[in-house]
């Protein structure tokens, strides 16, 4: 009854097949089996958002996401954002606008920002705050994080124009 099970999913573009225990969370598998330590264990209860990753493009708290539900899905973590030619515009924007202080919340913030900007390329400040309400930052007042996401929206719009 306690035997391991096989799950198969796409992680940052690569297909993986893993043996897991059914009660493991997606976060545990990302960090312990796949050495992807970008998503952070914070509260472990879906309250703080530090573990935010995208499953089929949708942001979820991976600390309480059953690994068995990842089977057949596409998972994107902060490690999957940067391309060969450099940082993702959201990452670049967080650097330029000082949206990073201690950095613990940053991977989750960036993934929430990505999910927002993918569906709403030009969000208002209210929409940004609504989108990151589940991502706790204990260093800043969120102002520079909001500014970073606004800046990222601009960088991404510029990049689209160049295409």
């Amino acid at each position, binding site marked *: 009854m306690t035997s391991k099970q096989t799950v198969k999913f796409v992680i940052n573009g690569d297909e993986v097949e893993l043996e897991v225990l059914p009660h493991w969370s997606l976060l545990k598998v990302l960090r312990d089996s796949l050495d992807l330590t970008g998503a952070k264990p914070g509260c472990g209860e*879906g*309250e703080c958002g530090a573990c935010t990753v995208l499953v089929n493009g949708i942001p979820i708290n991976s600390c*309480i996401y*059953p690994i*068995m539900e990842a089977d057949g899905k596409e998972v994107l973590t902060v490690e999957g954002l940067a391309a060969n030619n450099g940082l993702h515009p959201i990452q670049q924007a967080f650097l330029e606008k000082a949206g990073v202080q201690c950095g613990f919340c940053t991977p989750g913030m960036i993934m929430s920002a990505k999910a927002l900007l993918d569906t709403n390329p030009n969000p208002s400040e209210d929409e940004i705050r*609504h989108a990151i309400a589940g991502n706790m930052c204990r260093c800043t007042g969120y102002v520079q994080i909001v500014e970073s996401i606004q800046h990222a929206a601009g960088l991404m719009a510029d990049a689209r124009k160049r295409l």
Partner: protein
Amino acid sequence: MRTFQYLKPTSVREAQELLSHFGEKAKIIAGGTDLMVQWKKKLISPEAMISVRNVPELNFVRVDQGLAIGSATTHRSLETNPEVRRLFPVITDAVDNLGSVQVRNSATIGGNICNAAPSADTAPPLLVLDAVVSIAGKEGTTSVPISEFFGGPSRTVLKPGQLVTDFAIPAPAPNTGMAYWKHSRRKAMDLPMLGVAVLLSLEDDLRTCRKARIALGVSAPVPMRAKQAEAFLEGKSIDESVLTEAGKIAVQEAKPRTTIRASEWYRRELIPVLVKRTGLICIKRAGGKK
């Protein structure tokens, strides 16, 4: 080793059969935002988790005459549904700031209701909408009004082997306004100190109340309707003072407690204020003057 089987049925029938097979040793898991936390805290140790995430029959929002919502529908898909926002804004009010985007992408309305927390944000809206809960079991399908669904904190009328399949909501009458007010310290990631849903159907003068519904969360061991306050409003010309009066009657019907989020005294002070405030939103939404 402490673990569980994770089962992923793809039909209601299959889910129901698994549930009958395991009985008390299984838990239905939807988004897992409550159950996974309870598991981690060792509050529950089921032999099997039966996931309803992959059951298409349980994941739908249908707007026709009324509204039907599958139990495994996430809060996020309700929040972003324009028809729900236009026709049943009391639901949008409740899901819009429930948890976070991440939580709403997983957590479901069926999970919110079946956990039967006194603070469940979707309960007061379903109560004022006269929702009917459909239940699948070994003996077939039954239904029960949402007002009779809760049996106490974390308790429902569900019997072993039964699961909730959907919520059916009748179409509101013309000139109806509905709203939910969640009173909390934060706009996100917080549970309500008090939740108030109001629905008012007005006569064509847009003042006289034909039908009133008032539901309170965190005001009693279960989400409750304030039926005397509702009866007081029906037939009256609605204004601020009449709504406050109804709120004072609702306080008499409520049984709030002192908890970590608010004291009994504070909750009693809040009820009339929030009944009035939410009622005024209803009048505005019904097309009447504020």
